[in-house]
């Protein structure tokens, strides 16, 4: 029997800048089952990073605050836990691979030291053989030398893979990886995704993979969550979404991806820009760019509808 590992319900997050609050996440819901791989896709700035970092209370510079919602994990609500309690979960039970290596790796510590510190913090034993083989698994050549190097001496893609090795060495229950393959080439993407799949099978490790690459999602995800304007706008299993997207935004996004794969003279592009949090209104976030919009779409933020086991936030479906 499959069991849910983590359940996030109606999470809302605001940032405080100069004493002014701006709501950035207006409704983030995600369920991840034991051993499941869920993908999050969506517009740049739609809130993928903020909502997933808030699961671990890691919003930038502590300026971000969860204003409502629940994060149920292991019979606890993570949204209410103290920093001390979170420290036993973060990096040990739930690990996070940051989009930007500079955020996760300490600039003044050698790579070997970063592994030692992490394992020590969670009372796990350091073995240089185990660390070297973890690095080799993510395609780092000459791991012994790399352990003696600083992050600034390594390339973008090398740092990204070192973070992946750091995050899985503790064998967490849930791995959240934010654009884990955005700075590496195709042959390494495949290697990293195959590794994810292996550890997913071997340890029944659940995963949330944030990506903008449909090919990556297709390769390893079971289910997708699509975000736009600080909201989840669609969820469902991967094949139904790719073959029959319900939300007009998802449909446009798939068209763009297809055009990039099969371009002719110029790329298909979706005109306009998404609203930034400073422009959020109580209406459908996609209204200004939508081809099937009607006046009623402006009356309120559409609610999540159930359609054949899938969910979509659109009045016209």
């Amino acid at each position: 029997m499959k069991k849910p590992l983590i359940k996030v319900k109606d999470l809302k997050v605001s940032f405080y800048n100069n004493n002014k609050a701006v709501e950035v996440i207006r409704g983030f819901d995600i369920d991840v089952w034991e051993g499941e791989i869920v993908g999050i896709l969506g517009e740049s700035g739609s809130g993928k990073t903020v909502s997933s970092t808030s699961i671990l209370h890691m919003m930038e510079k502590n300026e971000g605050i969860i204003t409502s919602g629940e994060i149920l994990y292991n019979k606890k609500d993570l949204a209410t836990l103290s920093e001390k309690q979170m420290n036993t979960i973060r990096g040990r039970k739930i690990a996070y691979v940051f989009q930007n290596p500079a955020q996760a790796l300490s600039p003044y510590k050698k790579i070997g030291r970063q592994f030692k510190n992490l394992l020590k913090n969670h009372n796990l034993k350091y073995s240089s053989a185990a660390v070297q083989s973890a690095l080799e698994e993510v395609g780092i050549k000459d791991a012994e030398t790399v352990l003696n190097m600083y992050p600034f001496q390594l390339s973008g893609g090398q740092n990204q893979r070192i973070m992946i090795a750091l995050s899985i060495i503790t064998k967490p229950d849930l791995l959240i990886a934010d654009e884990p393959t955005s700075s590496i080439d195709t042959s390494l993407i495949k290697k990293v995704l195959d590794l994810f799949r292996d550890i997913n099978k071997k340890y029944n490790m659940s995963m949330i993979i944030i990506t903008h690459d449909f090919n990556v999602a297709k390769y390893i995800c079971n289910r997708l969550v699509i975000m736009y304007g600080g909201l989840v706008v669609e969820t469902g299993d991967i094949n139904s979404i790719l073959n029959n997207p319900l939300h007009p935004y998802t449909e446009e996004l798939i068209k763009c991806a297809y055009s990039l794969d099969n371009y002719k003279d110029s790329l298909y592009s979706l005109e306009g820009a998404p609203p930034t949090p400073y422009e959020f209104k109580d209406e459908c976030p996609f209204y200004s760019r939508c081809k099937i919009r009607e006046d009623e779409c402006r009356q309120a933020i559409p609610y999540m509808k159930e359609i054949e086991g899938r969910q979509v936030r659109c009045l016209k479906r």
Partner: protein
Amino acid sequence: MSEKVIEMTGTILSVKNLSKHFIIKNNVFSQKKIINAVNDISFDILPNESMGLIGESGSGKSTTANLVLRLLEPTRGEIMLFGKNIADINYKEMRILRKDIQIIFQHTFSALDPKMTVDELLKEPLIIHNIVPVQELDKEVDRLLNMVGLPAGEKIKFPQQLSGGQNQRVIIARAIATRPKIIVCDEPVSSLDVSVQGQILNLLIKLKEELNLTYLFISHDLKVVRLMCEKTAVMHEGKIVEIGKSSEVLFNPKHEYTRKLLDAEL
């Protein structure tokens, strides 16, 4: 002899036998280790011709970009920018050259000062390089915004108030502000979602034509290189293992490593 002169003045960028070696101190055995990040590479880029630089992670692409921009000192070799060897010129001359060669990086959020508005961010390079008279600054900012497809109203905003795609447009506007001849793009779209990628790539193609630009375009996304570049060079362990027309290199590769890269596309 005369052919050589034409070749030298005719290229935007000409790199000959360029190498960059880093020395790493290995504490454990207190030995030194040399990393040949860039190892004896040569290539030419002609006006209005773009070159893609692809290759494995750690193969030396960003190091090459940093050398060409002279953010790093070469260990050996020659970098001719518009016929001038930039290894020989002083800081002041490089500052003047810098307006002709610009860069667009990958990480959009960290590339812009969060305390500056879009207006200030665009005026900065215009003032530093004395591009237009002071009284025309506002008009020039509006012109740049228009070129990259941003409404003039966005001027008063700070980077964190804009989306990733809009920030990337500001970065591009800053890069073209100094009217460069060549722009080095290091993974310019890899952190953007596919709908924004399309917009930004269309914009870069449009600007290339309108401004007669040349790109040195680093990307691990072969689809993007196919679209953007007439010429492609493939790097592997610090060396260029294959270089030629994109239509040859990316569709009919000669080198085993290039074939491996193409086969691995998901």
